[in-house]
């Protein structure tokens, strides 16, 4: 698989801001059986505050995948998330993503291409909510079974 490093630095601009409903946060909390009083319905000051990892549910990675059909869809190999401002019900989250790195390595399933895509989440007040570095792995076509293995 050819690694096209010229994509490094390419920016995928945000689509329309995504509205955060109270229901979506509450459903996420219910799914995770979140009992921490800081999150969900009983957030401070009557606000409905999302747990930190709710941030990873926002993504425009499809735009990147559409741009690189030769790589295929790939698998999630890991994430690095930095949290700045909590997400609250009523927020509108915008996303911008940039390709930070592309490199090859070999692992248990053969040669793999790794792509690091950084998404920056911004709320309607212009505050940076989080940086989410997605690490995608794309296997070469001859890879063995268990395609989601990353080592």
């Amino acid at each position, binding site marked *: 698989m050819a690694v096209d490093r010229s994509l490094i630095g390419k920016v995928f601009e945000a689509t329309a801001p995504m509205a955060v409903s109270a229901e979506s946060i509450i459903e996420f909390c219910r799914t995770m059986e979140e009992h921490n009083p*800081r999150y969900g319905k009983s957030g401070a000051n009557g606000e409905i505050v999302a747990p930190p990892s709710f941030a990873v549910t926002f993504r425009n990675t499809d735009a990147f995948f559409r741009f690189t059909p030769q790589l295929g869809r790939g698998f999630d190999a*890991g*994430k690095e998330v930095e949290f700045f401002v909590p997400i609250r019900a009523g927020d509108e989250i915008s996303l911008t993503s940039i390709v930070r790195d592309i490199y090859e390595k070999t692992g248990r399933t053969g040669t793999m291409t790794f792509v690091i895509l950084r998404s920056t989440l911004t709320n309607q007040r212009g505050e940076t909510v989080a940086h989410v570095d997605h690490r995608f792995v794309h296997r070469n076509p001859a890879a063995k079974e268990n395609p989601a*293995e990353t080592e």
Partner: protein
Amino acid sequence: MTAASERQFAQVTIGEALGPFEITIGKPLVRRYAAACGMDSGRFRDDGEARAEGLPGMIVPGNLSLSLLSKLVTDWIGSGGGHLKRIGTTYRSMVLPEHRLTLHGFVTHVDSDSRAVEIDVWIENDDGERLVIGTASVEFPTTA
């Protein structure tokens, strides 16, 4: 792993354990999480669709592993002023539903000046294989 208490910075020591907590992620949870996150891939919904992609069956989305490890840390912090500043995860191997897993964590660094704490976290299977590994950074407010 309940969040009733408030973790105080002065309590935190290097080597302190988070867990271990034993879990089994059921297929209904995988489907519900994927739906809650708008992840519409068949690999998180149906064994047949997953097999069509060359997988052994439904797999647990990486985001769910990240959410479980985040919750391990935020439950440890509790309802006090400390907050999860960062979490990084590496998905080393597929996590499959309906298998017994264990969540692990250890405090590895405590910085008194910045009131910052570093934590190793991972998900292990019954063979002791670490399927997901990660680290988290927690910060405590100066007034806590």
